[in-house]
C-alpha cells in the first residue's frame, strides 16, 4: 500500500513538471511574439552599435598585392591614432583601409575625408565597416573601415595619392530620440556645464532644433553655440594626412 502511494506521488510529480514546463514555454513564446524586436531605451539610443562578439579582429585587411607604398602608416592627432593601409585602385575607385581609436563608449564616424590625386581631389566616399571593438573599462575602443572614393575622374593621374581625414564625429542619435540624446550629451559636457549653458530642444517629425536659452554672460552667443555643437557631436578634428605613391 505504501509502495503504491509513493508510485502515485512520483507519477503526479512527473506529470506536473511536464505540464508546468510546457505552460512556461508557451508563455515565453507568446511574450516573445508580443514584444517583437523593439529595442529598449538603451538599445534605441545606440542602435548603430554593433555586436562585438560577431566582429573580426580589428586589423586592417590586406586583400591583394600592395599597389601603393608605404603599405601602412600611423598618425596620432588630438589623442586619436589612425592607421591607414592597403590603398588600391579598382574600376575607377580608390579604396583604402583605415583604423582609428574611438574616443569613448560610443561609435564615431569619419564625416570628412578627401583624396587628392594629381591636381584633383574628391570628398565623396562610401564606408564599409570591417570591424569594431567597443570601449571597455580596460580597453580603448577601435574601429576599422574601408573607404571607397567612388567619384574619381577617368584617366586621372593616380601615381600619388593623399588621404586627409578631416574629423570624426559621434554617430547621430536614433530617429525620435535626438532631443533626449543631444540634451544628455550637452548636459554631461564639462565645458558646457562650466559655461552655464542650457538649451531647449524641439523634436519635429523629421529632425530636431536645438536652441540656446541660457549661458554665462562672459560668453558670446557664437561662442556658446560652438560649445553646444562640440558637445552634441563630440567631434574630434584632425587632420590626419597620409601620402602614398604607386608601387612600380
Amino acid at each position: 500500500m505504501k509502495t503504491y502511494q509513493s508510485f502515485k506521488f512520483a507519477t503526479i510529480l512527473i506529470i506536473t513538471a511536464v505540464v508546468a514546463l510546457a505552460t512556461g514555454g508557451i508563455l515565453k513564446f507568446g511574450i516573445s511574439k508580443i514584444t517583437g524586436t523593439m529595442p529598449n531605451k538603451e538599445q534605441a539610443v545606440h542602435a548603430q552599435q554593433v555586436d562585438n562578439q560577431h566582429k573580426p579582429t580589428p586589423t586592417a585587411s590586406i586583400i591583394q598585392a600592395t599597389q601603393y607604398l608605404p603599405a601602412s602608416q600611423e598618425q596620432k592627432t588630438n589623442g586619436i591614432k589612425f592607421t591607414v593601409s592597403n590603398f588600391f585602385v579598382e574600376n575607377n575607385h580608390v579604396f583604402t583601409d583605415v583604423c582609428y581609436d574611438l574616443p569613448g563608449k560610443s561609435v564615431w564616424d569619419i564625416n570628412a575625408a578627401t583624396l587628392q590625386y594629381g591636381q584633383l581631389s574628391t570628398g565623396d566616399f562610401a564606408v564599409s565597416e570591417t570591424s569594431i571593438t567597443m570601449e571597455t573599462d580596460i580597453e580603448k575602443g577601435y574601429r576599422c573601415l574601408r573607404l571607397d572614393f567612388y567619384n574619381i575622374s577617368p584617366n586621372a593621374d593616380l601615381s600619388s595619392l593623399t588621404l586627409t581625414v578631416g574629423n570624426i564625429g559621434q554617430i547621430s542619435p536614433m530617429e525620435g530620440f535626438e532631443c533626449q540624446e543631444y540634451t544628455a550629451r550637452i548636459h554631461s559636457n564639462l565645458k558646457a556645464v562650466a559655461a552655464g549653458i542650457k538649451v531647449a530642444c524641439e523634436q519635429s517629425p523629421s529632425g530636431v532644433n536645438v536652441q540656446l536659452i541660457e549661458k554665462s554672460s562672459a560668453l558670446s552667443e557664437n561662442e556658446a553655440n560652438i560649445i553646444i555643437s562640440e558637445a552634441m557631436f563630440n567631434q574630434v578634428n584632425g587632420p590626419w594626412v597620409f601620402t602614398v605613391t604607386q608601387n612600380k
Partner: protein
Amino acid sequence: MKNKQVLNFVFALFLAIGFLAPWEPHTVLAAISCWGEGRTSPTVLPSCTGKFAPAMGCTATNASDPNYWTSGGTKLERRQSNNCNARWTRATNVSGFTRYTAASSNYGCASYNCGNQSIQSGGAIANNLQVYTPMKGLTGTPILSCGSTSTSSMSLPIYSGPPSYLGCKAW
C-alpha cells in the same frame, strides 16, 4: 489530510517549475502603428509609406546598415525598421557649414523615378545635424537613397539618374 498536503506540494511545485524555469524577462513596449505597405493579419495595420518612423513607433534596428557614404558634404545612411518592415533615408549635413539639407528615397519603374519620399530641412541647419525622409514600406521594390546640401532651398526629389546614380545608393 495527507492528500491535501500532497496537493499543496504539487501546486507549489507547479508555480516554481512552470513560471520560473523557462522564463526570461522581457520588456513590454509600445506597439507599432503601421506595417510595410499595410497588412490585415494578425492585426490590421495601415501602410508605413509616407509616414515618419518615430511617430509610428518604428525604430531603426541593429539591422540598419552600419555603412554610410558621403556625397558633396552630405552623409547618407540607409535606415531600416524591422519592427515596421519599412525603410527610409537619413541625410546629415557634414559640409562644415550651415546648409539646407535634403534627402530622398526614390523608387518605382526602371530608374527609381516613379515615386519618392523626400524631405528638406525647414532652413539652413548646423553642421552635423540631420533630416530623414518618411518611410517606404518594404515590398521587394528597391529604393534609391539620395541626398544633398546647399546654401539655398533645393527642388525635390533629390535624384541622380541612370546610368551612374552617382552619390545615390540603391538597396
